[in-house]
């Protein structure tokens, strides 16, 4: 195996990657700086760029003002439920669109794409009324059921399946007499693991950060999700920003954990798809 890399190429690559890293991380770093200092430090000139000692103070302010762990638990419950449902329904549908032919397939898929763009203005009230009629206001159901399968997720899996799921294996499994679900489980899912990893991360994060809809649906602070709870820390006239930053920092940590689990799906195979430089 010949080594095609020249030293300059490698150095350029390192520099580019490193620069990108710095730019990506800097705001997050600054977030941590703000969370560990006090609000007046945030406004000081020159701006404070190093960690302070106020982290525990700010965190305790957060705990005083909102029921952090309850809302954390609520959010985990909703996010995990939606993610699991999404992974299943979107991959099943996306795989089916990609690898099978049936009457109306293309038309249905185009309709699906169009629904991704459909406007939702005014939809808030209509959706609220639907939920009210179903008796679901004040429960988690409006946060779970409408979002448990999305056009976006189906689109993603379908695109991914086109090249990732080997048609020969699908045909072979069909000849073997497997029903559709078994083909899905045995052939598609293993091939889709990187796509599922990504979709899982994405869905989890979207549900985690969802703010407007839970705000409208939930009234009981005991049921609040994290974003809604954190938003109550904001004042109209003045906000204790260091406290808010500490709160959002804590809210971001579970996302990093989830990212770890999801991203493993597409680092796992070190040799797959990789070119030796």
């Amino acid at each position, binding site marked *: 195996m010949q080594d095609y890399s020249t030293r300059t190429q490698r150095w350029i690559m390192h520099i580019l990657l490193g620069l990108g890293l710095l730019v990506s991380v800097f*705001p997050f770093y600054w977030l941590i700086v703000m969370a560990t200092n006090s609000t007046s430090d945030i406004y000081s000139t020159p701006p404070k760029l190093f960690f302070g000692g106020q982290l525990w103070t700010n965190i305790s302010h957060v705990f005083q003002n909102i029921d952090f762990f309850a809302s954390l638990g609520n959010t985990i419950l909703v996010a995990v439920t939606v993610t699991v449902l999404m992974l299943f329904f979107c991959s099943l549908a996306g795989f089916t669109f990609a690898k099978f032919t049936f009457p109306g397939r293309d038309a249905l898929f185009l309709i699906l794409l169009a629904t991704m763009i459909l406007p*939702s203005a005014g939809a808030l009230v209509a959706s609220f009324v639907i939920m009210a009629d179903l008796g679901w206001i004040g429960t988690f159901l409006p946060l779970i059921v409408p979002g448990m399968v999305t056009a976006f997720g189906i689109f993603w899996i379908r695109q991914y399946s086109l090249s990732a799921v080997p048609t020969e294996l699908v045909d072979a499994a069909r000849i073997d007499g497997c029903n559709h679900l078994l083909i899905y489980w045995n052939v598609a899912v293993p091939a889709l693991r990187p796509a599922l990893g990504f979709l899982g991360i994405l869905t989890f994060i979207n549900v985690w950060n969802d703010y407007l809809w839970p705000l409208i649906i939930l009234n009981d602070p005991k049921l609040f999700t994290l974003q809604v709870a954190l938003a109550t820390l904001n004042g109209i006239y003045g906000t204790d920003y260091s406290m808010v930053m500490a709160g959002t920092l804590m809210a971001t940590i579970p996302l990093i954990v989830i990212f770890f689990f999801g991203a493993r799906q597409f680092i796992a195979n070190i040799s797959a798809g990789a070119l030796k430089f």
Partner: protein
Amino acid sequence: MSSLVQSTSTPENTTIRKAVVQKSNWRKYLPLYLSIAPYFLIFLVFNLTPTLFSLYLSFNKWDGIGRMTFTGFNNFYFVLTDPIFGKAVLNTFEIWIMSTIPMLFLALVLAFLLNQRRHSKFAYQLCYFLPNITSTVAITLIFGSLFAPQYGLINTTLSVMHLPTVQWLQDAWPMKWAVALMVIWRWTGYNALVYMAGLQSIPTEYYEAARIDGANTTDIFFNITLPLLRPVILFTVISSSIGGLALFTEPQVLFTNNGGTGNEGLTMVLYQYWQSFASHHFGFGAAVSWVIFFIMLAFTFMNWKIVQATER
């Protein structure tokens, strides 16, 4: 599907065979339809009514609480003759070009480079993804502070290096660049991850075979990687088109609802939000969102065609 059966048969046989084939067709297709049904069901129950309501609303005037007044095409007439909406559309496309194209390109390069690495892949991936999970509140504060014209970090650095400062939040093009830079910052890592996932699906044997045939990295990239990655690339183009045309968070964060000085940072969806939520004109907002829908539909369709056409 049943054509194979019909070719060699007598009339009576055909009828019987057709019946048999149609019955098994139904059994054959049922699991497929069931697999795709959940989405359409959810859509019908939870999204169809709101969408129809939104359509109905666009022909009315409504402040969100009281009664609706029917106004016919008034809302549509207003938005289509509104110079500020025209500006918003123009801004949106300009910012889209300035942000999405470099962003997707950067993401592809990044994904490719990252995939080479054998060590600390996860650390890099995480860092590149951090922008996407940093909270909006934090981003508002941080980027507002970075781009502040007098004491912001960027301008302070520029003046230290004796370069002219930029009025990021007051001059027309710098405002757009500020938004574009924010979008690139937030979404490059995300799209790089999409591409990385896509790269996983390409078997290494293809590369090894190509190497044996004497191909170099550039050849492999353009002849193997890119074509096989096309479905995923199409996905990112479509979703970036939709996301880019629906740009809302970044300009709102930097400029508040009216898109800043001279509305230079106003995008279509921000215009819609400004005019509906912020001014309580929900009927008008609905009309605007339908106009935006058609614009997005046309643009997305065009992009789809372009990517499909690159298939030789």
